């Protein structure tokens, strides 16, 4: 794959960025997310997580089943502050 192929389109992270991060010592989707921001954008990794897991597998020689996906964090869809502010929540 070409180095400049965009893998995370929310944060503009390329295939080359990810391969370099892995050769620099990062080995999990969680670490790559924190250093490169891929998966931190509006789609929260829905588009790129699987691709990144595949790149980790091929770069490290692991199988795709061995690569853990990043923890999914709420809210699952981006939500406006005004909408949540007007929500009546009972504890």
């Amino acid at each position: 794959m070409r180095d400049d192929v965009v893998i995370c389109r929310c944060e503009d992270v390329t295939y080359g960025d990810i391969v370099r991060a892995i050769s620099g010592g990062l080995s999990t989707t969680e670490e790559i997310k924190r250093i490169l921001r891929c998966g931190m954008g509006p789609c929260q990794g829905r588009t790129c997580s699987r691709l990144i897991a595949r790149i980790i597998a091929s770069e490290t020689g692991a199988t795709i089943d061995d690569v853990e996906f990043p923890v999914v964090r709420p809210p699952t869809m981006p939500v406006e502050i005004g909408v949540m502010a007007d929500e009546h929540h009972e504890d």
Partner: protein
Amino acid sequence: MKTRAECVVIGGGVIGTAIAYYLARAGLTDCVVLESSYLASGATGRCGGGIRQQWSTEANTKLAIESVKAFRGLEEELERDIEFLQGGYLVLAYTDDDVEQFEKNVTLQRGLGLDVETLSPSEITSRVVPHLNTDGVRMATYCADDASANPFLTTQAYADAARRLGVEIELFTPVRRILTEGGRVTGVETSRGTISAPIVVNAAGSHSIPLARTAGVELPIAPYRREILVTEPLERFFHPMIISFSFGIYFRQVKHGAVIGGFGDPDEPPGFNETSSLGFLTTMSRKLAHLMPRLRSVKIVRQWAGLYDITPDAQPILGEVDEVGGFFQANGFSGHGFMIAPKVAMLVAQDVRGETPDLDIERLHPRRFAGGKITQDRSVV
């Protein structure tokens, strides 16, 4: 993995990696950092990234002032962008108690050389944050030199710099037990075997509590969940971290453009709970919508939680415990470890190497809780 080292540091957060770096810089390179997961996976990577010098105790203020000095040169020293930005901190007062406490704080802070000013509500909007709703705000203190940085990049920068000097960092290697013999530490037992070492530094955040217990040391620390959220990125429209102790909030706009912030729920019970709650999401949204009405149409993309390791005086525990020789503590940061990490780590490294720390840390020693009078810092958000 090594089976023997001069020093073992437990915890791959900003404190642990920075201690290892300063030890190695001073020549102690036979050091292993043990991290149970990945770097900054605990409190460091879950924090807001603020770097505040406006504190109410002398110890915290001095540590913060010296840390900002270190942060300023850190990108050059560690050869990495850590998104360090001096955007200031604006601290809002809402109550009589706030105003009274802030006056004391400013006197103390100015006495220590900090350039901090007091602002009226109209000065806040005309000079610092035009879009802030100042309803109910009595006054604010503002320090333009307060700052922020990216906790992941800072930790990675310390870790990589330490590795270049010969430090070994073992990820996904939890410590099971601290090993002791005849009142001295002898090493640690990990998931991947034992490492013998005459010095062990416990920098594992809230997890320092159960770890210390394996050596018979009881730390007066309690873990508390603190929640936080982040929005989609926006063009920059304010610079400082905005906080209030009485209103209960902190938030800033990161370099990337997103607004990040949270608050501490005073009713949160102690414990190792790190789950996210809907109650936080709605309450934090109300607070943000009130203080910054133009944020109403901005989308929240993610929320998470982390642990504050809170001590009775909200100040860290630094130093070698009296019960176990060679067993050093660097924990109990009470929610502000990231911002004082550089100076704290330098001092702990000096202490570990048997030098006299160049700033007095005796008052942060674990023995201060044994009957002595403690001074609580009131500036914790």
